[in-house]
């Protein structure tokens, strides 16, 4: 349900019923204060009426694995077959980058062809950088991979790169095809929307177990999990960008007599190329974000190193592996972003190697690398003597901080815990589920019509009915506080940098880099300083979620029509008046969307903070993962997804209303 279907009659009716909001609020507060004795069922969902969704899902997954079959083909055979198919390119990529091509098994294996030597890989990435943008990008890409080699992460990094090289093309092609199909068939588009919403809002942990059961432990299961997580943006962007192709281009295709297939592949997709490349970038970044989680079901590589280091509390090692992921993320991000805006050079005439100089150079690099590898062992494998390690330094630094400042850290932590976190947590946990559900339904109805009201009410009810209410409230409390803090920091920062171009460029670089960091990396420094617990989780969430708070504030403020600011100045407004009466007001819809994104980021990070011992839905999902209980994990995961969907819809409806009230909608 989008904001567009708020009709003018709605607005008229709404303004006539202003007393409804205070009334609903008053009823809600009354219920909270006085209802506990009168209506105990409104506070504790009756156990007898619980929907046993955990059991249902658990037995459904069991049925799917053991019994579901079409004729002689069992469903699990199909999933295993898919796993086997994905395994083929994965093995090839892995052999090429890491293990070399082998014949035979185990220790008897004979290496037919060693992996591509590391200097050749670095040069190849440099070549790609040069091809997509120029010398600077080439140097950046080579620097990132050199960094990985120097810190001794090469082997793991190549394992990770192999799975990325498999997951990204499948994700891009799959997303593209589904997006095209949804563009062609409106019914499919409507059917896909809720599915995509769930795929994007459901914590990854929640579906790891079913995937594990269906696809088996190993890198291919990890690729499948990565795909579920990374494909939705590509699908959405494809449909969106195909719709945005100018109608004249569409007319052109039909006028020159394109068949449907020609229309799609020769006109629409090429015309939407730039926007599609943004989708490719998204797939790459999300796949990298999944690297650590995927290693829980057997992906190996850098993610596994980080996870293992976290488990044995070896912060230095974890940090180095984490930085290697960041380096890879930065390189792949910049390369794919540059590819998105790459200007096609005019074609050159001449012999083959003239027309395709980059392919020729790539072939030359690989051949030269292999030849050099024959004679120089240092080329075959990065020599250990050249490796650097900073892990001792980090360990010492943390130790020094803890020895000298432990009391301060503890004091800050305890003060905030006792004065802010604990009281707020109590308040949230004490809220009656029936009241909250009714209030959410009311808010949905007032802001977006009865359909939205029905949706928000039903989702909230489902959370309560499946027995997740208390954990959901703890999730909301952590998420709410973290979001509030992130907004309280992010919005002022956004206001400060919005009018200063050079400062904004610097901040943009920082937040772009922050966004390429896998969410796990945020955990490490905080855990080192503050141990485990809610406070640590909050800091990590704030650090992760502050990026959209800043970005959307700046976008909104910079998007304000300069003529209006000029008009304000001409009327003699002081700078403060211009800020509050003109700019912030007109930027309000964008800032609201920023709030929405901040909440989404916070929720996705919260699940990961379960590792540092929170007690919320994330923990529930995580426990289910360790117990391999698909029902429990999926129900808790769905509850997280429902919270995300409720907030997303409500805030979007609010943003649309604000935009309408400000006269910013273009109908």
């Amino acid at each position, binding site marked *: 349900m989008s904001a567009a279907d708020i009709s003018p009659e709605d607005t008229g009716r709404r303004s006539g019923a202003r007393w409804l909001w205070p009334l609903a609020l008053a009823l809600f507060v009354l219920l909270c204060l006085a209802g506990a004795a009168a209506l105990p069922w409104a506070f504790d969902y009756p156990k007898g009426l619980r929907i046993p969704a955990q059991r249902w899902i658990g037995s459904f997954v069991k049925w799917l694995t053991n019994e579901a079959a079409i004729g002689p083909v069992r469903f699990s055979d199909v999933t295993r077959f898919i796993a086997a198919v994905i395994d083929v390119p994965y093995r090839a990529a892995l052999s090429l980058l890491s293990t070399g091509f082998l014949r035979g098994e185990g220790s008897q294996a004979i290496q037919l062809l060693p992996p591509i030597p590391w200097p050749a890989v670095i040069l190849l990435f440099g070549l790609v950088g040069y091809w997509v943008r120029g010398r600077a990008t080439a140097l950046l890409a080579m620097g990132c991979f050199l960094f990985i080699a120097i810190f001794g992460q090469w082997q793991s990094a190549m394992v990770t790169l192999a799975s990325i090289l498999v997951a990204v093309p499948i994700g891009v092609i799959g997303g593209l095809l589904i997006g095209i199909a949804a563009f062609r068939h409106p019914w499919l588009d409507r059917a896909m929307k809720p599915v995509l919403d769930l795929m994007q809002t459901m914590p990854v942990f929640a579906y790891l177990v079913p995937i594990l059961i269906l696809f088996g432990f190993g890198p291919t299961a990890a690729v499948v999990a990565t795909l579920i997580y990374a494909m939705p943006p590509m699908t959405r962007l494809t449909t969106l960008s195909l719709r945005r192709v100018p109608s*004249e281009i569409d*007319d052109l295709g*039909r006028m*020159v*007599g*394109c068949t449907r297939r020609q229309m799609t592949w020769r*006109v629409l997709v*090429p015309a939407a190329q730039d926007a599609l490349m943004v989708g490719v970038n998204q797939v790459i970044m999300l796949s990298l974000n999944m690297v650590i989680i995927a290693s829980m079901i057997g992906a190996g590589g850098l993610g596994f190193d980080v996870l293992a280091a976290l488990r044995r509390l070896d912060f230095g090692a974890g940090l180095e592996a984490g930085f290697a992921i960041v380096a890879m993320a930065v390189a792949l991000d910049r390369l794919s972003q540059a590819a998105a805006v790459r200007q*096609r050079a*005019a074609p050159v005439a001449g012999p083959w190697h003239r027309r395709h100089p980059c392919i020729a150079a790539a072939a030359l690099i690989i051949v030269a690398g292999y030849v050099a590898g024959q004679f120089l062992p240092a080329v075959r494998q990065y020599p250990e003597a050249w490796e650097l390690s900073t892990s001792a330094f980090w360990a010492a630094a943390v130790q020094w901080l803890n020895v000298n400042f432990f009391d301060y850290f503890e004091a800050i932590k305890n003060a905030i815990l006792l004065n802010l976190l604990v009281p707020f947590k109590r308040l949230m946990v004490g809220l009656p589920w029936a009241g909250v559900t009714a209030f959410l339904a009311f808010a949905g109805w007032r802001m977006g019509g009865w359909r939205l009201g029905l949706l928000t009410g039903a989702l909230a009810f489902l959370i309560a009915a499946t027995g997740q209410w208390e954990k959901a409230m703890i999730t909301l409390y952590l998420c709410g506080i973290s979001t509030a803090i992130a907004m309280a920091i992010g919005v002022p920062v956004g206001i400060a940098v919005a009018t200063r171009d050079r400062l904004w460029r610097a901040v943009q670089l920082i937040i772009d880099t922050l966004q390429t960091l896998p969410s796990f990396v945020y955990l490490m420094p905080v855990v080192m300083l503050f141990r485990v617990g809610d406070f640590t989780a909050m800091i990590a969430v704030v650090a992760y979620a502050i990026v959209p708070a800043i970005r959307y504030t700046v976008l909104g403020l910079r998007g304000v029509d300069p003529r209006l600011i000029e008009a304000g100045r001409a009327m003699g407004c002081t700078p403060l008046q211009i800020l509050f009466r003109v700019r912030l007001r007109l930027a309000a819809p964008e800032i609201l969307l920023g709030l929405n994104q901040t909440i989404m980021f916070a929720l996705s990070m919260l699940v990961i903070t379960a590792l540092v011992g929170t007690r919320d839905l994330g923990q529930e999902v995580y426990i289910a993962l360790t117990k391999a209980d698909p029902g429990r994990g999926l129900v808790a995961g769905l509850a997280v997804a429902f919270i995300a969907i409720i907030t997303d819809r409500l805030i979007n409806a609010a943003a649309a209303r604000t935009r309408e009230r400000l006269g910013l909608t273009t109908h």
Partner: protein
Amino acid sequence: MTAPATLICRNVWKLFGADAERRLAALGPAPSLEALQGAGLIPAVRDANIEVRAGEIFVIMGLSGSGKSTLVRCLSRLIEPTAGEILFNGRNLLTASEAEMIDIRRHKMGMVFQHFALLPHQTVLENVAFPLAVQGVDRARREARAREMIALVGLTGRESALPRHLSGGQQQRVGIARSLAVEPELWYLDEPFSALDPLIRRELQGEFMRLQSVLKKSIVFITHDFDEAIRLADRIAIMKDGAIVQCGTPEEIVMNPATDYVREFTRAVPKAKAVRVRTVMQPGPPSDANAPTVAATATVADASPAFLAGASEVAVVDADGAPAGRLRREDVVQLLLGGGEG
């Protein structure tokens, strides 16, 4: 003497709204604008009748929202009309199957777009060759043909440029070359010069007339610019609120506007540029045997240099050069100072 009609459009309606076809039929043969709006239908084209003759430039002129772009898309069936008939060389396009339409569009029709609609990722050469590539013509042949077309519009040397490297005028030349690559019989131009600067627009109008004098296509030309319509058209149809309010030669429209709406447009147009010499000439030879000559089909404005040079009468000749009559200075003055109004 009129050429045979290439394209005939009979009683074409295009209405937006749910179930438009059935509800239009329910409203009777010629429902009024109010009746349609009352029924919740949004009329884009109402009962349009036009005939485009072989080799003529037929201009559809109207302001934005008048339905002209919808009509031209109905003529090529890019938009499905709600009711009516569109006969292309006697064949009703509305009953043609999708495969037949693809075939007709591939070989018989070309279209130029207001915002050029060039494929941004292809070079000039590839863009021009694109309609042929879609047909499956092999690379050597389609590129040879594309080069010819590029030369025709004067862009030789820019074949490997990308659209964004070209100026607006150059981009539209590419658009023109592309629409001509398949040698269409029927050529649609949808406000081809509207997005261009006035100077470039005039230059391309001249270029367009030069091309047409060589190619002799049947042309449907859409514009919102009345001056452009007068300058280029053999015949003009003026549209308002989806209906054609007047259809005729520029001269007929300027001399006899059918409604006040049309008169508003004609008011600002110098009549001398629309009216042909043959309309205002007098019978008989001029009194001065050495008087300068002018063609009967020329506009009065074309004859004015002779009067400026001092002549008081000009000899009018027909297409074969045979004397047709005389044009007197006072007839011209009469025309310019009113007279013909209404």
